[in-house]
């Protein structure tokens, strides 16, 4: 009897110790900082306006892959990247991929003038409260987020991308890699 009790207590004690101690031994999360940390999450949707005042929302693009580029006119790398984004938009026009430029915190006139000067024809959204910049954990500008057909964030990039990098990222999203 005593031996049986001892064994039972030992097993029960070990099980309880495991339950109590296990959470404390959990390794720290290694989620990346910045927009890449949101991969796998549903992309937040905010009701914005375009630079011409029309309503703009990510919800309208469900079923398409969306390349969301966060930018501002005072950002030199954003200016350098814009022509490649325009090229990407033209390459994938009518193929279920949309490129959207989301201006962070500036007036529509300033954003429109900037886009016009660079010959940008893809939609320009005005995020005057910088909501996308905050929820995408932008570490700086430009920041690019690729949202899949189901509205889930597929890729997130901090900093400017080359045209090849953009193409590769979109191709991956299209093929589901």
């Amino acid at each position, binding site marked *: 009897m005593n031996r049986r009790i001892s064994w039972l207590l030992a097993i029960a004690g070990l099980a309880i110790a495991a339950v109590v101690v296990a*959470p404390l031994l959990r390794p720290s999360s290694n989620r990346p900082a910045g927009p890449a940390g949101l991969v796998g*999450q549903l992309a937040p949707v905010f009701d914005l306006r375009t630079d011409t005042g029309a309503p703009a929302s990510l919800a309208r693009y469900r079923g398409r892959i969306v390349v969301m580029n*966060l930018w501002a006119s005072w950002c030199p790398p954003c200016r350098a990247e814009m022509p490649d984004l325009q090229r990407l938009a033209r390459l994938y026009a009518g193929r279920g991929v949309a490129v959207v430029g989301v201006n962070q915190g500036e007036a529509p006139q300033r954003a429109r003038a900037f886009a016009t000067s660079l010959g940008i024809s893809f939609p320009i959204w005005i995020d005057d409260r910088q909501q996308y910049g905050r929820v995408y954990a932008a570490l700086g500008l430009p920041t690019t987020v690729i949202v899949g057909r189901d509205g889930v964030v597929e890729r997130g990039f901090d900093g400017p991308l080359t045209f090849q990098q953009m193409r590769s990222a979109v191709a991956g999203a299209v093929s589901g890699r």
Partner: protein
Amino acid sequence: MRVPALLAAAICVLVTIELVLPGRSLYHAGWYNVALAALAIWCALAARKRCAKAPGALARWAIVIVAFGAGVSAFAGVVSGLFAADNRTVVGAPGERVHLGEIGAVLAFPLAERSDGVRLVDSGNAARSIGARWSDVGSAMLRTRSRQVVAVDARTPGGGHLTVTQPTGSVFLSPVLLMQQRQQIAGMNLPYDSFAVPAAHRIVKAVLFTPQEAATLRGAAAGAPAVLFAVDDEEDRPLPHAIALASDGEAIALGGLQLRPSVISYPAVEIVAAPSLPVVAAGVALVVAGIAALAADAWRRRKVVTR
């Protein structure tokens, strides 16, 4: 049997108090946890002594269960007190997601413009709201605490919006200043923060005054908090005549900018270590069951004797 039962009850009460009144620094004190462990050892030794003199199998099992339950509760309390992370407050920016390694979950702070509360999102993307009352999340307890932050609107003199950035803040593109630093001004220890307006090549420092503190300053609106802005160029050199006070919601022209602060209440999250609720509950249940079994056995034996 009184000694082990009393010791077990004391242990259960002490550990349960940690769950009912969480966050006290006492629970992390070395001497407190040593005392808890000592009580558990004393209970075990006393139970062992009583076990040898127990009148029957039921009494023996009951004593063992009481001691085991006390040991389980004490173990949960000591592990939480000595090995869990220290109490802390997480101040997140609106829209920020803060990873809590000790819990394996993410705190999602709402955008200030929305009325959603702070949510705790686990690895399976299941979310629960964290409110002002303590929420048990396993090895810790969380609750929100309101604090004052400043949302800044920056525009050109013509009224056009300008991007606000916080290069040294936790969220680069947040126009909400968390006011976590402190600065001494005129004998007052005041919350302080800074932000940049890159398009205008400006860096702006902001100091927050409560309504009572603002009342002592000339130019502040009565009964409202106020923010003192100081505008520098992008080399951190102060601009001439570029320091002024703005009441909550008031727009002022300063250093080539139009600045308007909005002082808002925004939640921070307090995290405190706590013993595992299911384990403590199991320990308490074992102690109660064991004491009840002992009482029932003693009553049964008295009845047999008196018959």
